[in-house]
Every structure is written in C-alpha cells, then in structure tokens.
C-alpha cells in the first residue's frame, strides 16, 4: 500500500455505509446480480441450470427451452459453460499503486509542449525507445522488456484513460476504478468480484486469486468465494511442535458447517475456503524448493515473484479465471527519475518473463493482462523533481490476443484540463466493458451499472 505519500486524500470510505441514504449514492441493484450462474448452481426446480446446460449439450437448448432467461441470460449461460471449461479465458490485473506517470511511460516526444512542461524530469527524446509505427512517441528508456512485447504486437496501449471530471485523490480514484462505479456507492464489491459472482462457482476460491496477503478490493465479491494467496508453497497451517499440517488441521476439518447465524456462517465459510485452497495447492506445495525454472527469469521483486507464483497456479489448472496483483511505489511526488525508472524496469521485465512463462505452459492464448493505475500525473513537473496527482492514466493490455498498437486517442499537451492535467479521451468503464464482453463473455451492464454502449478495439 502506498499511503505514506505526503498527499492527504487517500482516506475515506465506510462513510457510504454510515449515513442516511441519498440520491447521489449509486446503488448496484441486487436484482442485477441475483441470478448469476453462482446462484443458479444451487437453484431449485430439481435440476440445476448448470446440469441442464451440460446435459443438454449446449447453450442453444438452454435458451430455447427456458425463454425466461431471455437474451440477457445468453452471456451468463456462456459464462457458466466457460466456468467448467478448462480452456476458459483468464484476466489478470496489475495495479500500479500510487498513480503512474503515463507521460513518462509512453513519452510524447513529438509534442513540443512536453519539453516545456517537463523541464526538470522530462525524458530526453534521444534516450527513449522507438515505438513502432509511432514516431511521435517513445518508450521510457527502461521499458526494453515492454518494447519487445509491443513490437511483437502483443500490447495495446491507451494513453489517456480515466473518467469525466477526474478526482485527484488517490482514495476516490482508487474506489472508482476498483468498484467500476464513478461516484459514491454503498456497494463494497469490486468490478472483478462481481464478475466472478457471475462467472464463478460457489466452492472454488481459487477461481479468483488476490496475489498478496490481504484481499484486493477489486476482487471483493458478493457471494463467490475468492482466494488470497501469494506463495502457493507457503500457504499452510502450522502449530509449533505439531509435526504435520494435516495434524494441525485435525479437528478443524470437522467443524466447518452447521452454523445458523450470519457471523458463524461467515467464520465457517472462511475456514472452508482456506482449507479448500490448502488442499488444492498440495501438488505445488509438494514441489518444495524444486520449482522448475522459467524460460526467462522474473525480477526477484514482489511483482516478478507474484507473477511467477501465479503462472504456477494457472499451470496447475485450478479453474482460475481472474487474478490481481499490485506493483507499488508510483506516487512519485519527489525524486521521480530514479524511482520511476526502476519501477518501469521491473514492470517491463516482469511482463516479458510472464509472457514467456505463459507460452511455455501453453497458456498464453488464454491469458490477458491489464495494467492500470488510479490516475496519471500532472502534466507539469514540480519543484521536488517529481509530479503531483493528475488525470488520464496510461493503460496497457498485454497478451497474444491483445490488439497491439496505440488504441485510444492521445489528446496532446496543448489543451489541458483546468487543473493542468491531460484530457481524458477514454472512459475506463468502456475499457472494462470491452474486456468483460469481448474477453470474459459477461454482459457488461450486469457488472457495470449504467455503462454506455461504447466499446474499444482491444481484442483480436
């Protein structure tokens, strides 16, 4: 987490739950999500919808036989099938924590204003790396790894993504990007949490993995279980002087059902989930330190290690559909050049190792990686060799099926918004909607209430 930033606006939020309801609070209608596949799996009518889909051999029958699902059910029916599909598509989110400076990532070297605005920490155009087909841009010099992926056509770049009237507080922007709702909302669920509610089942936490020690709020679901794991080999249960994990779990296994109160049910469910994950990870745990090498070594840092661990879990086939990881330290209010260069190097090198690892595991056609941040930074640099909070972040989409190239409009630096920030040309919710529909097969409106019909050409 990156709260020690000298800026004072990350705080806020259970506030939405505390006061009286009000008109400007956006609610996500319960009904929108109530009959997703997760619910259908345990539905009534004797035969579950899931079994029906499987038994009848397909979607067409389900829709024809049960018109009450209607066209709206199409996406979810497809999704329910995908959930059982070992070849289901996977979306991985990499969050650049703190607000990545997009202008020093994909550097607009062809824009004369860049040098005027970035007198202190501007990147010398001569040192940037060529962006194939776009002489007006150059990659930050430490993005050699990312450049190779881009040159191979595996990176879609969107240079000015945000939302209208962007809020420059970490906290607010994080909440908006995480929930997929712009404005205050009572709902704590994240957009990927709601996605797994629709796509996932009721008993496999590893269907969505938060790579860390605390649950990523993006993956906060309403009912579908999700897992928080950083190191699959280290996910265990131990008691001092108890000689095996199995013994240490001894009586726990027999005490995870039968509760009546919400609180006890939650406690039992949490244990059931944790023990279930432990059981599933057994084959990886058994490898101990003998983890097979990867084609390209990952940087030995949080992001590199996390992606390496994630690739192992994806390779083991736990039915994972979503995963999230953070890469922290982007709140570069001062001394940006050295720090930012290191952060970008780690990012680019990790992505290269990640793609090669996925290739070797035969997974790269199934995985799409989204790289995003809560905002970009102020167009003009500050007196401390850094940059302050801005707008219009640079989003990357990486994968074999990413539509390589620059895929959204760069607004230029001549016209900035009233706060001196990059103008926003692309709404992040349209980006999300595109990923939901074109990649994950989920109707976007059921995850992102009120999202409009605009979609982007991001998937090939």
């Amino acid at each position, binding site marked *: 987490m990156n709260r020690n930033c000298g800026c004072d606006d990350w705080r806020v939020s259970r506030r939405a739950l*505390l006061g009286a309801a009000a008109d400007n609070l956006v609610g996500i209608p319960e009904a929108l999500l109530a009959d997703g596949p997760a619910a259908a799996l345990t539905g009534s009518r004797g035969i579950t919808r899931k079994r029906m889909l499987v038994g009848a051999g397909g979607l067409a029958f389900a829709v024809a036989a049960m018109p009450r699902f209607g066209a709206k059910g199409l996406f979810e029916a497809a999704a329910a099938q995908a959930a059982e599909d070992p070849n289901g598509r996977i979306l991985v989110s990499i969050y650049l924590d703190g607000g990545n400076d997009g202008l020093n990532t994909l550097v607009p070297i062809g824009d004369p204003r860049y040098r005027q605005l970035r007198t202190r920490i501007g990147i010398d155009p001569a040192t940037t790396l060529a962006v194939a087909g776009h002489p007006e841009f150059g990659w930050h010099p430490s993005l050699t790894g990312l450049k190779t992926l881009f040159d191979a056509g595996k990176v879609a770049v969107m240079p000015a993504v945000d939302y209208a009237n962007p809020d420059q507080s970490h906290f607010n922007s994080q909440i908006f990007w995480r929930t997929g709702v712009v404005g205050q909302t009572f709902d704590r669920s994240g957009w990927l949490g709601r996605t797994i509610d629709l796509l996932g089942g009721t008993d496999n936490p590893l269907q969505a993995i938060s790579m860390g020690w605390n649950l990523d709020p993006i993956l906060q679901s309403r009912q579908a279980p999700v897992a928080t794991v950083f190191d699959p080999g280290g996910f265990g249960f*131990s008691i001092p002087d108890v000689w095996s994990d199995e013994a240490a779990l001894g009586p726990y296994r027999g005490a995870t059902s039968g509760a009546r109160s919400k*609180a006890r049910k939650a406690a039992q469910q949490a244990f059931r989930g*944790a023990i279930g994950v432990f059981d599933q990870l057994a084959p990886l745990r058994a490898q101990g330190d003998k983890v097979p090498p990867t084609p390209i070594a990952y940087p030995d840092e949080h992001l590199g290690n996390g992606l390496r661990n994630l690739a192992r879990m994806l390779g083991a086939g736990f039915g994972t559909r979503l995963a999230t990881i953070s890469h922290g330290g982007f709140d570069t209010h001062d001394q940006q050049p050295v720090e930012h260069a290191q952060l970008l190097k780690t990012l680019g090198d990790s992505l290269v190792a990640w793609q090669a690892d996925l290739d070797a595991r035969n997974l790269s056609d199934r995985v799409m990686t989204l790289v995003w941040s809560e905002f970009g930074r102020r167009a003009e640099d500050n007196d401390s060799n850094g940059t302050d909070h801005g707008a219009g972040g640079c989003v990357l989409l990486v994968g074999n099926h990413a539509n390589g190239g620059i895929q959204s409009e760069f607004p230029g630096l001549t016209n900035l918004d009233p706060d001196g920030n990059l103008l926003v040309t692309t709404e992040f919710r349209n980006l999300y909607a595109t990923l939901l529909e074109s990649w994950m097969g989920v109707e976007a409106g059921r995850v992102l209430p009120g999202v409009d019909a605009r979609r982007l050409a991001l998937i090939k």
Partner: protein
Amino acid sequence: MSTTIARPPTRIARARVERLMWRAGFGAVPGDVDRLARAGMDVAVHELLFPRGPQLRKAPEPTVDGQPIDPVNVYGHDVLWWLDRMVRGRHQLVERMTLNWHDHFATSNEKVSDARLMQQQYFTIRSRSVGSFRKLAQAILRDHAMQRFLDLDNSDKDDPNENFAREFLELFTLGVNNGYTEQDIREAARALTGFTFNYDAKAFGYDSERHDDGVKKILGKTGRFTPNDVVNLAINHPKHAPYLCKKLWGYFTPRPCPPGTLKKMVAAYKTSGTQIRPVLQIILTHPALLADLGEPDQVKPPVVYVAGMLRKTNQVVTTDSWTWMLDNMGQRPFYPPNVSGWEQDEAWLTTASVRARYEAASQAVRAMEIKDGTIAKKQTPAQALSAALRMTGKPWTSAQSRAALSRYARTSVADKTADWQEEHYWPERLRVLCHMLLAGPDAQVS
C-alpha cells in the same frame, strides 16, 4: 445474610457474562466469569460502567525478547502497547470504548507519523470515552494527531482546508448527507481556521490572525462562529443524537436497533447533556445483546480476538509478532484504513484473514509451553479435552465442534503406542485441541 458456600453458577449465567464481556470488553478473564455469574448481570454492567481501582492489572508486564516494549521509538511497538492495555486493562468497557472511538474518530499514524501524538490521542479519548460526547468532540478538535490527520493545522482564513469540517459533519456527528450541505462544510471550514503547526518545532497553536472571524451561516444558524461553535452546532443538530446512538448500538450487536430503543437512547443522551454512559447502559442491559446465547452472532474484531485469547490463557504480550499478525487480520490499531474506520462484522473474515487468525493461535499455543513428555499416556480423550478447555478459559463451543474435538481426541493418538510416540503425540494432541478452542470457527464469534 447467609454464609453458605457459593454454588457453582449456572451455565446460562456464565454464558450471559461471557457474551457481555466479549461485547463490552475483550473477554472476561477466567476467574471473573464465575464471580460475575454469581453476582448477576446488574453487578457486571455496573462494574463496566463505573470501574474503580487501577487501570491495569499489575504483573507481569509486557515484553519483547525479554525487554520492555518501547511504543515511541520501536517500529510496531505502538500496536503492542495498546494491545497490552486491552489485555491487562481492568476497566474493560473504557478500553473497548476507546477502541470504538478510535474507529469512529479514525486517525492513522500512516499520515500523522508520530507515535507520541497517537498515544496522546489514545489518552485524550480514553479519559472521555464514557463521559460527555460534547467534551470528547471538543477534545478531538484540539487533538494534535487529528489536526495533523485532517489538515486542521495550518488551515488558514485565506485558504480554509475542508477536510476536518467535512468529516466532522459527515462521520463524526451527523452521518453522510444527513442534514448538512456542501455549503455548510465550506462555511464550517472557515469557522475552523486559525490552528497552527510548526513542523520544525513540532509546536501546535492557535493564531487569531489566521482565523476567519467573519459571519458564517452553518446548519441554518448565522454568526461569527469559532471552532468550538462548529462542534456545538453539529451536536445540537436534531439529526446528531439518533445518528450517534445508532452507531454506538452497532458496536455491540449486529441486530437492528428497535425504534423504541433508539428513542430511549436519544432521550437519555439528550437529557443527560450528551452523556455516553446512559446510552451504553441501555445497550448493555438490552435483551438483544444476550439473545440466542447458543448461536453467537457477532464476528470478533481482530484486536478483540487477540486480546481476548491472551486474557483467556493468562498471557501478556511477549512478542512483536502481534503487530504484523494483526495487520494480516486486517486491524492494526493506530492505523485504520481510512477516516471512516474499519469495515466491521463479516467483512473481517476472508480466506486470508482467517489464516492469520489461525496463526495467532499458534503463537498463543507456543507460549502455553506444552512440553513433550509432560502428559501421561493414561490421559483419556475426555480428559484431554477437559484439560484443553480449562487451559483456554472454557470457551463456548458448538455441538458440532465438540464432536469434532472429541473425535480428534480419540483418533489422533490411537495408533501411537511406542514410547517415543507417547512422549510427543500426547502433548501434540493437547496443543491441537487448545488451538482449535482458541481459533476455530466458534472462537471467531461472540
């Protein structure tokens, strides 16, 4: 007065005391359960509301690696210092309310970056935690950690910072969008200008030159309002008392507050001149608090869980591991996630946090020092379970957990017949039994 020997208290009387002490404190220390169960709930509630004697149980004092803890200079010891006060605190409701107010007036050292200021805030809150809310709010207004946290320091008439004004109305006194407008926030921010902070000298002050002494209109009233006036205007607002009483209720029970009870609380709060104690009295004696004793319905917040575990096993803080463990459980005192405090109830429990809670019990069991070779082989499964129950303060267990524990007690040592096995596996059985009594699903709720 009769002089008969005290009979053992009934199970239901014990269960009531247990419930009360988990909700109003950090769990009863083992001896207190029987004592209070005999004395009755009126006595128990009275002791909570009107505590007497020293604040802390004396010995033993908390240590890390045998050394005293150093909350100001050593990273992470601030958390241990507070945890210790919960563990050894004799004024349990006061300690619990201090935690509740920390959640309410959430201030994080992540921004304040000064453990001393945070400690001062702890005492600022503690000494007013069951007294007048008006006085508490006035003290919070002047609290230096809070002033740093919400940018009240150096908020100047030329550039009033709205942070404190906004949270004060929105979270501290009225509730989101509950009876105030954006204009009220702006005007209140003007009235709150004038506080100063010199970073180098670490000096806080008030400079009337920097205070906006013009006329403001706040919550429908007009005048040359000062910082104190903002506190009073908000507290006198008709929406304040119901908001605060309802929030207090929520700390003690997840059950909805009956409208009649809310009315009673509001009346008690108002007629007493914003006293917190009478409101707490209504909550602590309400049947909802003791409802369904056989099916606990509130998730223990992480610090309550940990402090209670130490209290039930007669331990004090002896390791700095608690700091990161609490962080992994999602609640590190002095570091709330944001100004609206921690998400409560079921939100505490995830596959990740429950593993951290499991780990915490491993630490507690380690400190219980159940050594190999100390348990005789003749110990029966039933004896093993009773020993474990005794060692963990006889916690509430569901029928299902009892069955799982009994089964484990029977089967875990059944095939361990060699001498070396007896040396190890008998104590191992006890360790595991104690562990589940401390950390199993039943132990996560009260």
